[in-house]
């Protein structure tokens, strides 16, 4: 920051050769008071002391308002001195050459006081300017730290002090081919050429209306920061802009990195999903396949040694497990359809009928669990895809069974609530930790029953949610479900008007 040192050491930019009205008035008053005092006290204190009072007035004016005011004050003071205190009295004529000495003295004092005051004020102004720049750099740096995206960085730049002071800040980035202005918009005339020149030379340029500095990242220069506006150099200089450019480069680099990280993690998430899908398919399909393969090969290899009951059981197991595989396949298929955004076709479906069909499918898996049904006598119509509705219900019921002990209660209730069909499936099973109530509807999300590998594909509830939302309904999980434990899955679907069926 050499320019700030230079400022204080050698050049005095502000000799204050202009005077504002207020400064003029103040100067006049000071001269008037000091002169009046001098003229009034001269008879008692003598001419020399009275002259000193004039000097004092000139000095005060110089210290307060600078050289111009001081010189003016010196002239006026001398005139008053000459008029009132030197012979011939009450004339401006000088009687002797010695009478001219005060004139010279007044002006020398004025000169010294004015120059000193000007220098002092210059230093104060420089310090103030440095402070302001430092504060604005600090402020901008804090804002840049919070900016994560390129657009945020540019917004922060537009709100920085130079921009607030009327300068337009433009960032050019070199993208292999050439310099391109970030944030779009038209490149102001002449700016591109200056930017190109700074980029080629690698050094800052400072003209009256334009200041441009190169942007450096870890890998080397990557762009140019340009500030343009009338008297741009009054507001910023190359040193200040370089400091700003340093922070800007860091922020832009970080923005680029973070966008790269975001891309990578999005990719990783989709890979994760594929892996989860594959391992889910692998596990869930192998389990029923194991039972089918073991049953079929047993019948083939040891059929003769098995009694009729055992053979019957093996055959039944093959059929049951095929049905299970079929359901898994249907789940996967429906999931990919819902995922692809294909909207299922809706027709009028009776909720009671759908629940009945779903219950029929899972009844074989109930074991000694006690199923309670609370179903309305009249049909309750909703607009839905019948097959998907049934699949969703089977998924929820299969969960209720898989996640509860033998002998526990499972309750299915259907009712009309306002304009909605309310379907609640409650169990007294292991339940869901309250924090996971929303997450169970995500794909491949299984409640960690224990550390061990869970049953099911982790698609069931995701499909239920996909289905319900496709038909403008709501689905959520609550805990406890029944008997102070377990889970309740609640579905609300808009009830369809029965007359729509006739139409």
């Amino acid at each position, binding site marked *: 920051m050499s320019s700030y040192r230079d400022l204080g050491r050698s050049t005095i930019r502000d000799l204050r050769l202009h005077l504002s009205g207020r400064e003029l008035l103040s100067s006049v008053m000071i001269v008037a008071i000091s002169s009046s005092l001098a003229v009034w006290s001269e008879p008692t204190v003598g001419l020399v002391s009275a002259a000193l009072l004039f000097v004092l007035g000139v000095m005060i004016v110089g210290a307060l308002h600078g050289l111009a005011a001081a010189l003016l004050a010196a002239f006026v003071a001398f005139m008053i001195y000459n008029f009132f205190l030197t012979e011939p009295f009450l004339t401006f004529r000088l009687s002797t050459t010695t009478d001219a000495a005060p004139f010279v003295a007044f002006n020398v004092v004025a000169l010294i006081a004015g120059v000193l005051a000007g220098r002092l004020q210059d230093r104060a102004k420089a310090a103030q300017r440095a402070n302001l720049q430092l504060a604005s750099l600090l402020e901008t740096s804090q804002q840049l730290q919070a900016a994560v995206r390129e657009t945020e960085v540019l917004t922060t730049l537009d709100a920085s002090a130079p921009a607030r002071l009327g300068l337009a800040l433009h960032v050019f980035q070199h993208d292999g081919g050439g310099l391109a202005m970030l944030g779009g918009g038209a490149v102001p005339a002449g700016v591109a050429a200056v930017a190109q020149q700074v980029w080629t030379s690698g050094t800052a340029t400072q003209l009256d209306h334009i200041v441009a500095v190169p942007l450096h990242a870890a890998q080397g220069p990557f762009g140019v920061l340009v500030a343009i506006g009338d008297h741009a150099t009054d507001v910023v200089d190359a040193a200040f802009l370089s400091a700003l450019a340093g922070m800007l480069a860091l922020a832009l680099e970080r923005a680029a990195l973070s966008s790269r990280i975001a891309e990578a993690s999005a990719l990783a998430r989709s890979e994760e999903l594929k892996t989860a899908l594959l391992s889910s398919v692998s596990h869930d399909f192998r389990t029923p*396949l194991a039972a089918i393969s073991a049953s079929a090969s047993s019948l083939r290899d*040891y059929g003769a040694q098995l009694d009729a009951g055992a053979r019957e059981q093996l055959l039944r197991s093959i059929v049951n497990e095929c049905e299970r595989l079929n359901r898994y396949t249907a789940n996967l298929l429906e999931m990919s359809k819902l995922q692809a955004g294909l909207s299922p076709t809706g027709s009028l479906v009776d909720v009671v009928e759908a629940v009945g069909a779903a219950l029929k499918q899972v009844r074989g898996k109930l074991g000694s669990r006690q199923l309670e049904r609370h179903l309305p006598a009249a049909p309750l119509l909703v607009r839905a895809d019948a097959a998907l509705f049934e699949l969703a219900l089977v998924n929820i019921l299969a969960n209720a069974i898989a996640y509860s002990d033998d002998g526990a209660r499972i309750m299915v209730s259907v009712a009309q609530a306002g304009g909605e069909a309310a379907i609640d499936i409650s169990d007294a099973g292991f339940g869901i930790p309250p924090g996971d109530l929303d997450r169970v509807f995500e794909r491949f999300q299984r409640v960690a*029953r*224990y550390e061990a590998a869970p049953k099911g594909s982790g698609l069931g509830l995701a499909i239920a949610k996909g289905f319900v939302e496709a038909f403008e309904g709501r689905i959520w999980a609550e805990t406890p479900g029944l008997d102070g434990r377990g889970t309740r899955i609640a579905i609300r679907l808009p009830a369809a008007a029965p007359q729509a069926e006739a139409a």
Partner: protein
Amino acid sequence: MTAAGRSRILVVDDEPSLVAVLKPVLEAQGYEVRVAVDGAGALGAVALFGADVVLLDLGLPDIDGKEVIARLRRTSDVPIIVVSARHQEGEKIAALDKGADDFVNKPFEIGELMARVRAALRRRQNAARRPAAFHAGPLTIDVATRRVTIAGETIKLSPKEYALLTTLAESAGQVVTHRRLLAAGWGDGAADTQYLRVYMGLLRQKLEEDPAEPRLILTEAGIGYRLADDLPPGFG
């Protein structure tokens, strides 16, 4: 194939569908079958009922299967056959390192499972009476004279090859992990399965009819090797 008396088999699996198949079929083969649906049940059943073979699913609802193996091994040397849909080699190797004797991948054919069960039972009997000779198909190993023959013809083996072959033979019909084979051939420090591959190649050259399609020394990809023990007897 005759059933092994009243050998007791403990089936540990939380999948009712698979248990429903295994129980009647194993019983029809003359085994006494008990079922446990979780790890705690398995540990209790072995302690109370005793078992000659444990068929263990790794994905149990309460305790991880590998932990069940570790706990069983503290008190029992019962043969453990891991029956799991887990396809990762890492899981199987970890289970074998914890003390499991063998594994069967789901889905499996019943004959494969029965062969593993028989191999496990046989090894248990062999361990008790330390046989003087080993037979597998055309292969015979005379432990006392260290003589190896194929279909009656003497095969000359290096000490390392002999050590590897006898290690496989001690667990005939069961998988032997790379680690165990390396320890047998090179001591515990050796770790490069590349050596193992070379020596297994040499053994196959000497023992197999067609080394490109081995029938005696089978590869369990990523895990180890298995000496087939249910080949047609040939001259053995």
